[in-house]
């Protein structure tokens, strides 16, 4: 069964460093997403990506964050100058169409710890 894969599963980084979280969405999907879950809090939307550009982003997704689809298979989330409060589980997801037509499939998540 096709699945969304994320690497690494855990990442520890020093405050102020840049991190790149990687995702391989399901191959025929057209919409890609990043969500995050701070420990003990809700899963929150960060950004959606379609047709090689950001289609929507939340207030959380400020200039510190960026996304890229560098080739036909990978979808990355870059966090510049990480802060302690960026520590969270980050989930990548993909869907074939928009969420009003089809479901999103999520990866296993990357647990980011900023120290």
């Amino acid at each position, binding site marked *: 069964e096709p699945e969304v894969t994320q690497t690494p599963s855990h990442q520890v980084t020093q405050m102020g460093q840049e991190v790149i979280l990687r995702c391989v969405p399901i191959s025929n999907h057209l919409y890609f997403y990043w969500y995050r879950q701070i420990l003990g809090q809700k899963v929150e939307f960060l950004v959606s990506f379609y047709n090689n550009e950001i289609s*929507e982003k939340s207030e959380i997704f400020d200039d510190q964050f960026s996304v890229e689809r560098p080739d036909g298979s990978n979808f990355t989330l870059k966090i510049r100058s990480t802060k302690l409060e960026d520590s969270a589980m980050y989930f990548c997801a993909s869907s074939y169409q928009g969420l009003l037509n089809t*479901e999103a499939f*999520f990866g296993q998540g990357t647990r980011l710890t900023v120290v």
Partner: protein
Amino acid sequence: AQSVTQPDIHITVSEGASLELRCNYSYGATPYLFWYVQSPGQGLQLLLKYFSGDTLVQGIKGFEAEFKRSQSSFNLRKPSVHWSDAAEYFCAVATMEYGNKLVFGAGTILRVKS
């Protein structure tokens, strides 16, 4: 404010007992409704979804959910719980007015006692 509410943070049921997890939403537009499950150390797995049609939907692992528009609810049920169902369950909603993204409830942690 638009929101998704899962009123129960923790639920404990005995193995073999029935289960109902509650989910309420507050959106004016037609909702598109989902239940996801997260086992320890795992990602979010889709259990079932509702887009339109029959308001009782069947999902994987023996789960079902019923959409009740009058109550703004989408409760998840299972007639007989197995120990392997212990996990955290998330209700999520998408609506046209909120765009192409999911809004999640806070989750309900299910414990199963033998």
